[in-house]
């Protein structure tokens, strides 16, 4: 390790110990140049994190107790206590549907496209004929942005001119009927998500030592048994990544619903509500911040769970 590298580790360690106990090792003198490097390496990321993550997050929480149009100085902010939160819970009709839709989103994403993606990966990993063609076909949607996917599926879903109603001979209002549009959008998401998960899983499967499979075969385990008892446990890191991606993707669900109908009429999700209230002329800064704070709390639950798993992993 270079001197600078060592020094950085040293600083990190003292930092994490928060100076509670005096350093046991004799302090190492750093050359001015190394010192400068260390200072830059510590302060720049800290400033970035504080400026781009913590300040806006805390500002959102603070502003969620305010009524402010975003116009005029900070002195025009009226502090109204928890009124925004009570309004959200009691008289803001889109809120509870939004919570429900977010939960449906994460559950669906996990149960259907993720499982399907894993299944496809396992099948394609068997080097069947044309496997590359399938791979490309399934992966194709992943390179498209969700916003674009919304437009593409509109061509299928349009009530009067869409392909789906033409083929099925139905008159279903796929994007407009609040009882079906969430599912229509979820299918569009799944179209992309499946390929994404498939690719990640396929890469993971390629990394599994072939001798494991051979050993399992020698022991007389069938395909299914081999997968669940040997391959799947061996892929723990990939499984974890997939889990995290599913949660992140469902919290980021914003683009698609925004393109479809700005997250209204059956497609309410928290992220779209935040945007609708804060962005543009609407400028209900306080109300939108309260929604954002709620979203932050929900995300933190997932983040905490994830960190717990990761840390447990590291300790083992």
């Amino acid at each position, binding site marked *: 390790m270079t001197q600078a590298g060592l020094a950085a580790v040293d600083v990190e360690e003292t930092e994490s110990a928060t100076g509670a106990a005096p350093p046991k090792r004799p302090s190492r003198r750093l050359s001015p140049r190394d010192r400068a490097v260390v200072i830059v390496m510590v302060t720049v990321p800290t400033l970035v994190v504080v400026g781009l993550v913590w300040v806006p997050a805390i500002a959102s929480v603070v502003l969620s107790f305010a009524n402010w149009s975003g116009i005029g100085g900070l002195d025009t902010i009226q502090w109204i206590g928890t009124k925004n939160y009570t309004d959200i819970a009691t008289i803001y009709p889109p809120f509870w549907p939004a919570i429900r839709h977010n939960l449906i989103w994460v559950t669906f994403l996990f149960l259907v496209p993720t499982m399907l993606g894993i299944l496809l990966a396992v099948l394609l990993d068997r080097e069947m004929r044309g496997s590359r063609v399938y791979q490309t076909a399934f992966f194709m949607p992943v390179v498209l942005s969700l916003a674009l996917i919304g437009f593409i599926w509109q061509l299928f879903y349009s009530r009067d001119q869409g392909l789906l109603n033409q083929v099925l001979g139905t008159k279903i*209002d796929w994007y407009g009927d609040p009882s079906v549009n969430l599912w229509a959008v979820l299918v569009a998401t799944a179209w992309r998500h499946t390929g994404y998960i498939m690719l990640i899983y396929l890469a993971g499967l390629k990394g599994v030592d072939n001798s494991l499979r051979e050993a399992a075969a020698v022991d007389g385990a069938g395909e299914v048994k081999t997968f669940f008892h040997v391959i799947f446990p061996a892929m723990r890191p990939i499984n974890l990544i997939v889990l995290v991606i599913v949660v992140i993707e469902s919290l980021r669900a914003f683009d698609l619903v925004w393109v479809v109908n700005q997250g209204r009429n059956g497609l309410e999700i928290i992220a779209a509500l935040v945007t609708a209230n804060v962005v543009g002329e609407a400028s209900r800064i306080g109300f939108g911040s309260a929604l954002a704070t709620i979203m932050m709390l929900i995300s933190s639950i997932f983040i905490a769970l994830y960190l717990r798993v990761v840390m447990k992993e590291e300790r083992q």
Partner: protein
Amino acid sequence: MSRRAQSPASMVPPSVAATAGISRRSFLRSAAIGGALLGSSGLLSACGGGGGGESSKTVTFGMNETGDQPAAQRLRAMAEAYQKKSGIKVKRNEVSHNTFQENINTYLQGNPDDVFTWFAGYRMNQFAEQGLIADLSDVWPIDGMADSFKQASTASDGKQYFVPKDYYPWAVFYRKSVFEKNGFEPPTTFDEMTTLAKKMKAKGMVPFAFGDKDGWPAMGTFDILNMRINGYQFHMDLMKGEKAWDSAEVKQVFETWRGLLPYHQPDPLGRIWQEAAQTLGKGEAGMFLFGTFIVDGIPDVEDDLDFFTYPEMDASIGATALDAPIDGFCMSAASDNTDAAKKFLSFLGTPEAANAANDNADAPFIAANSNASTKTYSALQKKSVEVVSQAKDIAQFLDRDTRADFASTVMIPSLQTWLGKPDDIDGVTKSIQQQKVSIFGS
């Protein structure tokens, strides 16, 4: 077809621009600003133009149009005509319509241009009250501007803050050939209209084309019904938050609307207005209550289109009010180049400016100044002029006559929810009223 057209955007009501077809980039920019939640002024320098501070030989001009659309061509032509005439340089700052709209709050608090494009009505008034735009009463009176336009340019303090440029009325559109073939006559009373709707239905047509996926088109229906049933004054008071949304009057509007829904195209919430316009264009629908920018959705049948104003429903109220949103110009309060800006604004209100715009663009607008030449106008536009000049009261459209936050975060979702279950009139009016009290504070 089902793409959201980025049609001549000056003609698209602001709510569309604010919400529909939002580009990822403009969204991200707004999100970054909204995310910072500090309303800090410097952030939007990308949008803010040069600002003042330059010599009086230059005036900066913020445009909410860009590209090759006729709307942008017209604004450019106006700026160039002034430059040629006065020798004062007009520095244009062209911003795409959506971006301009979404960033307007930050733009005005930052380093705004001296003169910028905006809308008449409550949204102009809001900026006037917040001190973001400057008093233009010495630019008025403008020769050729009707009283109703002056009214729409006047804020709550009785002073003018706005110079009108053009407008586009809302009316009931139909195809002349379809009416001829079926022997239909444009109705003059509400009863005649319902009878006509029944006839159309009997022939297997959809009487009223209707698409409300973007949320704002239904506002047009609400506006006209409210103005016909309860009158212009009640409508404006309701918009200003001075009347209750759960009142008997408003419920009456929803009752009437519910009665009309069977004559409207079903499932409006999945259909964008262009698709609805196409059903009219194809002759599958008989009528369509919409703004004159309907021709952008069905340009092929423009020559076959005609319209009538929404008929009278109550003789004591008449049919003298209509929605005709006015676009125009404001001067930013932050400008330190006021003399040059006001001279430019005076020019923008003249027939000369309107003619320069219409002579140098692919499609003309309907000039707010009645002395402007009408030689470039289409037949529809000529008729629009007539209809608007006969109208006694002009409303600006729901999302321009009330608070922007109320229109976009309460009215759009509420109207959409109600269209999904039209029997729940008590529920929707109660919910709107609760949220209105929370937003307006009374």
